[in-house]
């Protein structure tokens, strides 16, 4: 019972972080570094991570994957670099505007896009997938693509999605099962380092 109480207190208290950010005074010498920060911003974040729940991303522009793919575009047209390295690029507003300078300029979402560019701002996309820092996963797209893993295997069928949704739950079980089926390494440091 005591153990239970401690575990619970731990779970709740353990992973929060003080909100105060050192003020940006112009006087460097007066500042001192804090001894610690906590692993999470808030108690809520800590609890959410403990139970593995994530908030749904809200995208600033209702980008539709369906339409782009239906028009014959490929994933790698925008997500450049996914076959070369760990991450796929999320295109910047400039990249979108190479086409949308002329295409569908009257649509409300495209107007939003143009407005961002006019203000000199990039689109603040929110992450859909991605691992918690405390999961310490070093995922690398390129070897997976070289091994012929279909994008949909991990991201769901984007032909049916408008804004990207978390269709696949990237749990460790999901990864390990696929690795096992394909005789890929399941050594821990394959992904965790």
């Amino acid at each position, binding site marked *: 019972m005591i153990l239970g109480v401690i575990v619970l207190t731990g779970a709740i208290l353990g992973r929060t972080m003080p*909100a105060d950010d050192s003020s940006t005074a112009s006087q460097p010498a007066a500042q001192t570094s804090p001894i610690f920060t906590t692993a999470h911003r808030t108690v809520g974040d800590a609890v959410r991570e403990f139970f593995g729940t994530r908030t749904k991303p809200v995208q600033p522009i209702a980008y539709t994957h369906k339409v782009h793919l239906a028009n014959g575009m490929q994933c790698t047209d925008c997500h450049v670099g996914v076959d*070369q390295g760990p991450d796929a690029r999320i295109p910047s507003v400039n990249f979108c505007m190479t086409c949308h300078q002329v295409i569908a300029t009257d649509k409300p979402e495209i107007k939003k896009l143009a407005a961002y560019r006019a203000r000199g701002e990039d689109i603040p996309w929110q992450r859909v997938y991605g691992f918690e820092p405390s999961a310490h996963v070093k995922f690398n797209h390129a070897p997976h693509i070289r091994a012929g893993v279909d994008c949909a295997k991990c991201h769901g069928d984007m032909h049916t999605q408008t804004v990207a949704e978390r269709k696949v739950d990237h749990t460790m079980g999901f990864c390990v099962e696929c690795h096992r089926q394909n005789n890929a390494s399941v050594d821990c440091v394959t992904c965790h380092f």
Partner: protein
Amino acid sequence: MQRRDFLKISAAGGAAAALEGCGNPDHQLIRFIPEEDLLPGIATWKPSICTLCPAGCGTLVRVMQGEAEVVRNGQLGILKMGLAKKIEGNPAHPINQGKLCPRGHAALQVTYHPDRIKTPLQRTGNRGSGQFKEITWDEAIKQLVSQLSALQASKEQGRLALLASPLRGERRTVLNNFAAGFKSAPPIEFEFFDNRVLQSANLQSFGHASLPTIDLGQSNYVISFGADFLGTWNSPVAQSVGYGHMRKGRPGQRGKFVQVESRVSQSGASADEFIACPNGVEGMFALSLAHVVLRDKLRAGDAAGHAGSLIDGWSQGLPDHAPEKIEKQIGVSAATVARIAHEAAAAGPAVVLIGDAATAQTNGLFNALAVNALNALLGSVGKPGGLSFGAGWSEPPASAAAGKGAADSIQKLVAQLQSGSDAARVLLLFNANPVFGTPAAWGVHDALGKVPFIASFGSFIDETSALADLILPDHSPLESWLDDVPASGSARTVVSLAPPAMNPLHDTRSMPDVLLDVAHQLGGDPAKALPWKTYDEALKATFTTLYIEKGSQTAKDPDEFWKKAQEQGGWWSADEKTPAPAVGKFSGSPAKIPAPQFDGAPEEFPFHFLPFASQMFYDGSLAHLPWMQEAPDPLSSVMWGTWVEINTRTAEKLGVKMGDTVEVASAHGKLQAPALVTPAIAPDLIAMPIGQGHENFTRYASGRGANPISILAPMTVESTQSLAWAATRVKVSRVGEGKIVMFGASMDETPASTKHR
């Protein structure tokens, strides 16, 4: 943890929990449109140059895309940009050959330092109070131009002083041209370890006013008088690469390394034979080695040529320096001297080095001349496995170094300010920190305080730039166009070049670009002296000259040459041919080796005082880097602090225990620091690392430890004006219990359990 912190943090945590619904504050920052087109997660390597010490190592910077919080047009936002992530040695660079010292790695933190000056600043509070307000670049440059124009208007151009840490390559040209165009006095160069005594000796002995390039890799016998050539002296990485090769790079052949000094230095620790010798008698020791070589006819006397002729009694075989006669004075038995001389002569090629404390005695110049003569006698000059000079493309003009030290100019500046006649009215400061780097007895701080207007181009507020009225922050080296012309370290001619490795993080501007801008705004002669629009234009012009002078096998025109140099990290000659030995004829006016003088009566001040270059902080200019602060000193393992080295027996007599606070007092000041009791120092010597003791140098270095330079006596090296920083005597007393932070615990003796079996 203080209770106060607890309450504060609890409250903050609670507030955070309450505000949680507002979402991640990072998401509330706007995102700027990226300026570069980078692939996430993929590293590119860009050549750069290490600027933290004069060695001029070539580096490769690993650049990856990252998200930086930056201010653009007065607004805080997130920008995806290429960020330097790691610095490695450039394998193609002839100096460091892909290797790097600890300081070079930490250069990364200069760019990302939290206390870097982010915008131009104008002083608001009293001088030195550290109160500044942020201004725009237009305002800042306007202020500087108006100050300079005022000097021009009153025909007082000579009252502009420029104070810089030694610059090389095109930056030096820009600064010199600016001074010349403005008709001010030439820039004053200041750094603590300026090596000018050795440069001066080399000029006299060999006709080269530079430090030697040492071919350790092919040497079989290395004798070093006080030079910490594996730690900080001259070109330490190049020398370490050579040392590794000397020790184990040639199958079946292993060179011997003998270190002669009064405290086991970073280099001395690796010696095959360590010979203790009091400070100041290094020259005598060298000459007694020469005596044995001459006496036993191991080499002919005239082999030393001109270098030998400078030494009194050389032609007679140095009768006064027979080891038997001087063994008491140098504290080394005649048998040892004879053995070393025979070993060195037989092993060949042999090379003798001198540097650091051995040249910072009042008789340092003569010590260096003696070692030069010994080198010449052993036939080490200009030979494989020996030392060579003059590989640099544009060696500093001989007159700059000959017979005068940094002290000369800075003391003159101070004297003028103190007397008020011809005193500087405007001072431009380029990273030099003489307030920290000169003895308090010189009065630099108060004198500089009298300058009506000081503008600093540094990236940090330090003891000297804290006096500034205007701060025009420079880019960090990684954000700048860099070039360098190292004078030693490689037998090849090297001209390093690097474009910026990353875009600037803050609202800073490159110092040479600002000077060009200021010169153009002033118009007239200054503008004519600096005809380039930007600094890279100036660099390109220089590389065109270089192409024309040296030619190139790979580039067909100057443009391609310029491009290839940027990709490679510079240009270097293909051949490693050392210039012909500049030994010269057997002539010259002989000089006797004078006895060293020390400040302070031995009765009152029983110990010699030896400040030494810190492996992590060099001359103190790197104390602001947290990696350097936390890296344990290799010998003492001290982190985040300073220490006073005291011999075990001496400490016992003084009743001092490890970590006790002791007071070290010279006739010119005193300081307190924790004691480090060690067997690796002479019993009559007190040593202290230079680097800590900053009053005002970012959050990581301010108010930490004590500065040994401050208590030094204003002694100069005879026949030069350089500070004889190892010529002070001190007394030591225990103050009480203290605190010393060490990474290593018990390291005095290897216990049996750690000995390899």
